[in-house]
């Protein structure tokens, strides 16, 4: 029982690296060793890092596609409703459903919905805004937005073991390995 409560109070183990190359290599090795609940942190996007921790595909594009289509449809249907059904105005005998004039607003609303959903969808899928996260408990993590690179193995990983995982991470030649209190 007491063992479980100790493990619950630990978010995981964090290894600190000096360069993107070291982080990507370490992430590959950790993922290759069978750890699945891992995350890597860097001050800028690193090509291939997400692949290295086993994260290959995200759903942002799907969200944007769906919202863009909704935006376009609502733009067109709004204009159809207004110009044909609710408030028909005869302009020089032209048809009420004068679709060429509706293209622009349809286009703009597609972009508007798609663009907003790209930002909001990205944040929502990332779980942001988030007022608290355990990784910030490690003092050195303030350098994660500067010039240091971090790899975290979560304590929820089935293969996680406080001693053996620490030994494994030390074998990756990091600058330091520290425990992340939850």
């Amino acid at each position, binding site marked *: 029982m007491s063992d479980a409560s100790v493990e619950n109070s630990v978010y995981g183990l964090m290894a600190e690296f000096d360069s993107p*190359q070291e982080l990507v290599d370490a992430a590959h090795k950790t993922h290759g060793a069978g750890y699945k609940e891992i995350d890597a942190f860097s001050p800028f*996007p690193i090509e291939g890092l997400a692949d290295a921790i086993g994260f290959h595909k995200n759903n942002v594009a799907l969200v944007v596609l769906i919202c863009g289509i909704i935006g376009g449809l609502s733009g067109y249907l709004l204009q159809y409703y207004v110009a044909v059904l609710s408030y028909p105005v005869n302009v020089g005998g032209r048809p009420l459903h004068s679709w060429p004039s509706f293209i622009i607003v349809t286009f703009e609303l597609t972009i508007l919905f798609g663009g907003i959903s790209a930002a909001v969808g990205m944040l929502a899928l990332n779980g942001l805004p988030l007022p608290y996260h355990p990784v910030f408990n490690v003092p050195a993590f303030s350098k994660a937005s500067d010039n240091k690179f971090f790899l975290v193995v979560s304590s929820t990983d089935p293969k996680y073991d406080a001693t053996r995982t620490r030994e494994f991470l030390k074998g990756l030649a990091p600058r330091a390995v520290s425990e992340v209190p939850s």
Partner: protein
Amino acid sequence: MATQTQIPVEVPVEDQRAPVIEPGHSFSTIGEKVSNIVLKRPVSLGWIFGFLVMFSVMNMLLMAMGYLFLKGTGIWGITIPIGWGFAIINFVWWIGIGHAGTLISAILALLRQSWRNSINRFAEAMTLFAVACAGIFPLIHTGRPWLAYWMFPYPNSMNVWPQFRSPLIWDVFAVSTYGTISLVFWFVGLIPDLATLRDRAENPVIRGIFGILAMGWRGSARHWHRYETAYLLLAGLATPLVLSVHTVVSFDFAVSIVPGWHTTIFPPYFVAGAIYSGFAMVLCLAIPIRAVYGMEDFITMRHLENSGKVMLATGLIVAYGYFIEAFMGWYSGNTFDSFLLWNRLHGPYAAWYWSLLTSNIFIPQLLWLKKFRTSTFWLWVISLIVLVGMWLERFIIIVVSLHRDFLNSAWGMYYPTKWDWMTYIGTIGLFLTLMWLFVRVLPMVSIAELRTLLPEAHVREEEEVHK
């Protein structure tokens, strides 16, 4: 066994061009240099003085608008036949200036132009502020700005709806979408940098503010993965958007039957003109800012020279537009179109038209010469001239086309009043006040994107690692 070949990840710059980032920088020094302007640099007397000047100019705008709301648009120089005076001239001018920011951030991102990374942030800020200035004009031009929400479609007790066949309503949608997407794009780009500022700030209040704005960004690889997808999609969406905005603005004119407005060349030539004036504004701001804030390492001669080249190219498209307008005036054989050409060259506003040709076509040809493209002084002067020229272009299009159209009995002249000038100059004050604040409270250069330009930011391929 596997050979230890080192594949260079970054193609070295072999020619004589200046680098996009001066050598000797590391991940840390980039963050330090950019964030210190916000966090450490003391507020200088020069900054306060400049701010007070800009702030007073901005207040002139507020006074002019206050008097306008009291008296109505009769205080302006607009009359019949010239119902669209300064308000629309300045609206088109400001919206056009905004276009360079989106071009740099979206189109150059899609084209993978690495030189965009150090100027996109403040170019996007420039876009936002320019759109804010632009938005004021159609609003106050309505005469009753407190009823401006009537332009949006919403169910109302009057049982009326906007007329969606009108370009003016298209404009409402185009400009408001453009402003919103520019803000979203700018903010998404800022998030990682706000996290950097949060982590570097020593003052707990400032750290708290940047902490809230950064929304808990922690640089997770999964987050970066989604972030990059979102950023790419935003760039992909903003690219057709920026091309559409000035196209829609040009429809305000081209859909009408006024000689000088009713032409099919308008959309491409308006978009090119917008980018032309936008890059002129980028140079106008970048040259003094990089000197004052010591940003020469990040905004190098390469950026300035490339902006000069974009100006030259878009300027030539604009020149082509002028040429086609003149050609069609002659070739169409239409009395009103030929008269428009004659009236531009010899009419009461001929001096304005010749100044326009001089400042938009003749003087910028100096940019063919490397000597002028690589001189900050000359680039700055040419940019100012282009900004004036692009303002004159809108004056010519609006005023000269309207003042003498089909019936001689309906001819007139346009004389802007002091309220027109106060409103126009006041928006320049508003724009510069916002810019003045922006460079001190937010990172003016994208820290995260600059870091990706360093050679050590690139990692070797997987196969090589596990050789």
